[in-house]
């Protein structure tokens, strides 16, 4: 069944959108990520312009992460104080990111910058996660006790001042890296049009040693906050949020996310990381291939100003 999208000015199959939303929602619920890095390319593939895709995906991620966050909240798998401190940085970062986005667009080559940052971020983050997950699995297979490095193992982050105790995560760290991480995620989210969960989760795990029990729920709260702000800013600045598109994606997304969250609880942490790493790496490589191989058509058309 075809449905006409009022802002994208395009008819699309409603079931295709629902299926895409559900698939991405499943992944996002499972790994505690927004799924923007999957959704945005998928929408562009269907024929929606990148600008509309990025703007509409933010509200889809907000819905998906809200339903996820609620179910994690009931399981007490969210650290409220950690989420709050992250949000302070996230709000600042999103505002900064939107300003940078506007600047980049005026300079041209925004598409290239987005593609390059996708390649660099996704392949590096995905690669590291995949490698870590693989090593952990090999260790487990060999019968060695999985080394829990958490208590006692100090990295440079633990030497910073302004320490704060985050009770539910059972960590005692400085707020500086926490705000810094929030800032980075907010910034990247606004510039690249992604939730940023796939960078946030490993940062929280490796840098702050946030336990797996609270990391996903907490990251969802930050994603929710930054994506709500992003939706507002996109609606205000360029009027490109397609509410109909967003609603269809949301319905698919939240449904998928529920099943994903349950599936995620059944899989062990290192396997989860291995899978996610693989997925991120695949998307990153796909972007890299697109940049390197000769495109089918060297020419592209973009509407610059509607002469109405």
């Amino acid at each position, binding site marked *: 069944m*075809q*449905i006409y999208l009022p802002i994208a000015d395009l008819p699309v199959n409603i079931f295709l959108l629902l299926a895409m939303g559900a698939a991405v929602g499943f992944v996002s619920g499972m790994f505690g990520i927004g799924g923007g890095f999957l959704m945005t390319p998928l929408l562009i593939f269907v024929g929606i312009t990148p600008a509309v895709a990025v703007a509409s995906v933010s509200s889809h991620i907000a819905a998906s992460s809200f339903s996820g966050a609620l179910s994690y909240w009931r*399981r007490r798998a969210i650290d409220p104080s950690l989420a709050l401190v992250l949000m302070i940085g996230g709000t600042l970062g999103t505002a900064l990111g939107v300003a940078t986005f506007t600047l980049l667009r005026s300079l041209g080559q925004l598409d290239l910058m987005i593609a390059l940052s996708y390649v660099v971020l996704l392949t590096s983050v995905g690669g590291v996660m995949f490698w870590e997950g693989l090593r952990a699995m090999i260790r487990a297979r060999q019968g060695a006790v999985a080394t829990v490095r958490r208590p006692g193992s100090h990295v440079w982050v633990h030497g910073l001042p302004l320490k704060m105790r985050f009770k539910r995560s059972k960590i005692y760290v400085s707020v500086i890296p926490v705000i810094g991480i929030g800032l980075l995620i907010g910034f990247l989210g606004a510039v690249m049009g992604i939730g940023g969960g796939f960078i946030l989760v490993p940062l929280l795990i490796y840098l702050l040693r946030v336990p797996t029990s609270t990391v996903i729920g907490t990251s969802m709260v930050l994603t929710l906050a930054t994506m709500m702000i992003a939706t507002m800013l996109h609606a*205000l600045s360029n009027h490109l*949020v397609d509410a109909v598109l*967003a609603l269809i994606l949301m319905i698919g997304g939240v449904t998928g996310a529920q099943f994903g969250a349950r599936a995620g609880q059944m899989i062990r942490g290192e396997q989860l990381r291995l899978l996610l790493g693989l997925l991120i790496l695949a998307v990153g490589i796909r972007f890299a291939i697109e940049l390197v191989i000769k495109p089918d058509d060297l020419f*592209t*058309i973009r509407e610059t100003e*509607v002469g109405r």
Partner: protein
Amino acid sequence: MTPFRLASLALLLLLGAGAEPAHAERLIASVSNHRVTVTPNYAGEELVLFGSVEKDAQTPPGRTTYDLVVTVRGPRADMVTRRKERRFGIWINTDARQFLKVPGYLALFANRPFDAMAAPEVQRRQQLGLNNVLLTQRVGPDYADVVPNDAFRSAFVRLQSQHGLYREDTSAVTFLTPTLFRTGIPLPAAVPIGTYEVEIKLLADGTLVTKTETAFEIVKVGFEQFVATNARQNGFVYGLVTTAMALMTGWMASIVFRRD
């Protein structure tokens, strides 16, 4: 005034002068629908243009066969065409050309090939065929159309044609009787919203005899119109509503799927 502008002005004068004399025939035409509404289940449409050639006393007696060219132009917009080149191992946009106020939809229909109808000079002057339609580009400080085989121009026409937005069909116009004609105007699903001008040119013996114009519009109605207008005019409220919708959807899902 640049030489390009002077040239196009001269062209305009010529066109105006050419259309004036010898009102021997009259063209009457109408499209099947003057107002195409885009509804939630809009997935492209085909309009039909009907028309007839009315002769009068001044019509040369030997003239029996006519040629017809129907040009449909959609709402105009500025477009940019970019070309990728390999730099440092990756393909990036290097060169770009701006097209000014070009139609978002452009269709040319005729009853037989343009070459059989008129001399190349007439084809160019009357803008018969995609190769002869004026597509203004910004070339440095000037505005001009370039030769049809220009890389950017041909890429632009080719890409628009791939999306069904630019088309040329020299067998689309059919004469039902020697004076009654019809043609279909196919509109793709991703059609630009706005006013469409239809220009019908009647040719005989390789020259323009007369022409007429009609128009139709493509509009969004109801819910589509409501959403599009509000997104543009009330960005803040629209954002709030969308965000609230996101939260509601998320919350409802967690209620519906609650198992604990």
